[in-house]
């Protein structure tokens, strides 16, 4: 079995679990440098996605699952992260729309399109202390791994690892996008909640991929 629709469904289920498990942590991170709702927002979103998953037809492709995630997050999350994650999944889904199953190149295409979607909407660069600080290292590591011949699951694992490292790098940064940017130097020493949730979601992707 490859990274097919069953995997995509499994990823969504695992994402909902992970977000719920880390809800309080994400809220706390967001309270420190934002407005304390990031965990609440994502949890509301993924709970809604989960509820809609059963409505998908049996013949749905991975891209259809990802598109459902996109539209549901957009219409339920609100705040900054709703449209950003929504666009990420939407653009990523479009990049793999025709695939019945994702190979390493498709995974890279998905991640790249997702990251580009976030940048398109949010205009953040690496170093701005946003979720981009997790997404971009993940994309870079994934494409390097794919080029050296890794399979889809391994590419996701490398991406998750890079996203986690990327999230850690936000500790030292002053924010230049999002609410944390008003804090100036006071944001230093705190981890960006969106970067942390990005790493959690990619880790969920990798875990479900290696179990497939």
């Amino acid at each position: 079995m490859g990274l097919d629709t069953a995997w995509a469904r499994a990823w969504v289920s695992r994402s909902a679990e992970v977000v719920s498990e880390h809800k309080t942590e994400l809220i706390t991170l967001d309270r420190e440098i934002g407005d304390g709702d990031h965990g609440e927002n994502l949890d509301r979103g993924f709970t809604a996605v989960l509820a809609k998953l059963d409505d998908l037809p049996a013949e749905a492709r991975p891209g259809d699952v990802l598109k459902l995630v996109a539209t549901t997050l957009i219409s339920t999350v609100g705040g900054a992260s709703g449209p950003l994650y929504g666009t990420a999944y939407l653009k990523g889904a479009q990049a793999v729309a025709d695939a019945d199953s994702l190979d390493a190149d498709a995974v890279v295409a998905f991640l790249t399109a997702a990251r580009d979607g976030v940048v398109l909407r949010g205009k953040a660069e690496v170093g701005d202390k946003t979720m981009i600080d997790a997404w971009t290292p993940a994309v870079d590591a994934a494409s390097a791994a794919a080029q050296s011949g890794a399979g889809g699951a391994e590419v996701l694992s490398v991406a998750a690892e890079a996203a986690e490292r990327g999230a850690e790098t936000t500790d030292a940064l002053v924010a230049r996008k999002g609410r944390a940017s008003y804090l100036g130097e006071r944001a230093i020493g705190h981890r960006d909640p969106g970067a942390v949730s990005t790493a959690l979601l990619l880790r969920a992707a990798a875990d479900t991929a290696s179990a497939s």
Partner: protein
Amino acid sequence: MKKLINDPKDVVAEALAGMELAHPELVISHDPAFIARRDAPVQGKVGLVSGGGSGHEPLHGGFVGPGMLDAAVPGPVFTSPTPDPILAATKAVDGGAGVLHIVKNYTGDVLNFETAADLADAEGIRVRSVIVNDDVAVKDSLYTAGRRGVAGTVLVEKIAGAAAERGDDLDAVAAIAQRVNDNVRSMGVALTSGIVPHAGEPSFTLAEDEIEIGIGIHGEPGRERISLEPADAIVDRILRPILEDLPFSSGDQVVLLVNGMGGTPLVELYVAFRRAAEVLQEAGITVARSLVGNYTTSLEMQGFSLTVLKLDDELTALYDAPVQTAALRWGR
């Protein structure tokens, strides 16, 4: 936390139900949640939609009515609404002349309104957006999410609303809204923090003798935290950056808005108004129009903001035009 609520998660829905019962001149859609003029869509008139997190009342729902907004979209407390209700409100008020979105400059609001605009566009409704960013407290806007939209939003909504009411087309209404935004500056101060119902604790804490200069309307940090000063000194401290920013100059005619953050008594707002008006007079600036009251609040925060809008003849006429909303009424 002492709040006059039932379940924190029901606050916005119950307040909407209250508005519906209190204001028969409004139409309330509960799901998706938005507030519209009873006579919307007004055929041939540009529709005006604003919205954002709740907790800033009367902004925006209190400003729906003839001469101002056609619809307001309330998100959860301090959280931007999603695109769905924004889209629904946009469709509900489109009278064929297109719709203007008036959006306060917060990443969440901007992105969700943007998405709604895209979706409306896909349905054949012309949408233009104006981003309000009047808060001069944010200094290095290149290195931040940019200046925030605060109480100047009320003046953008009032004046653009009058332009739409007199029959301006979408581009013209958008241009007027943009002109108001370009000529309005604000800055606020907090004496205490508000409490978001679902958070249950103050958004930030100030010591018994501390105030935050340049506070945002969600309690975002400002320029500095200082010891409490006499009202006149505080007014001087926040009026200066406003005047320097545009800059305003002698001979200008302005609207002066002294806006309460929710928990400051009106008698104190008038004390602040007095000083602000005096300082403007001394600078040769004429306070041609005045507003004093709670217009853009931050729940029960104690504090206030000053907003100064530089007028020209057209803006003055539009400001004076009749308005009939729950929170702002004159003329006719």
